[in-house]
């Protein structure tokens, strides 16, 4: 096929676009996959977990995030793990925390990056096998992760 100017420009534009695409982002589906990979087939129920994250975030590079779970934290009834996931960060996993009765209280506080206005999910796995979740919608004005540096 003879390459016309129009075809050439369309192809060249496509190449340029492909090169400047931001890294692939997580989607709701990849987040679900990541969650399933961690918790297996256990049903997710809302409740028990409390995810605290500001609803409006000026700077996505350092967002205070805390998770707490209602639990007696005894040998027979405790939280085994807490996981945090996001919907639109480049990678759905944020962090996974493993704890036990010696923690005294089930919870932690940290700072995370959020790439976009999205849903953040916290999941708690209890020692009896039940899995609980809480989700929060956040609005991010300055995104993390995708800026260039000189």
């Amino acid at each position: 096929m003879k390459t016309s100017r129009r075809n050439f420009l369309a192809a060249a534009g496509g190449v340029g676009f492909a090169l400047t695409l931001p890294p692939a982002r997580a989607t709701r589906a990849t987040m679900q996959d990541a969650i399933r990979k961690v918790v297996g087939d256990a049903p997710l129920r809302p409740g028990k977990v409390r995810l605290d994250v500001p609803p409006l975030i000026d700077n996505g590079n350092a967002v205070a995030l805390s998770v707490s779970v209602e639990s007696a934290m005894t040998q027979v009834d405790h939280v085994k793990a807490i996981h945090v996931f996001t919907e639109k960060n480049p990678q759905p996993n944020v962090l996974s925390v493993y704890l036990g009765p010696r923690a005294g209280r089930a919870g932690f506080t940290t700072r995370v990056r959020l790439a976009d206005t999205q849903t953040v999910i916290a999941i708690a796995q209890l020692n009896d096998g039940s899995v609980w979740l809480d989700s929060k919608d956040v609005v991010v004005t300055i995104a993390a992760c995708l800026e260039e540096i000189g």
Partner: protein
Amino acid sequence: MSRAVINMPARAKRGQVIEIKTLVGHPMETGFRRTSVGAPIPRDIITQFACTYNGTEIFRADFYPAVSANPLFTFTTVATETGTLEFKWSGDNNFVFTESATITVD
């Protein structure tokens, strides 16, 4: 070399739940960023944090690139006995950093 700050009570009553705040200096380069000429910047993050109390692991966390630079992490434990808490961060490029703190339990 890195630096860490641990903030926790030096004394506690037996059975009391104490709060431990940890902060470690690390860029947590995500691996998703590029330089102005488009070259990808390789990932350099802390992937694991663990805390042991007199040799027994009481807390562990896996970090992903979404954890902010200079990871701050606050958690709790039950003061069971006088001793040492060891904190260990490990990650990409053979990064390992340990810090310890002592507690007196009465």
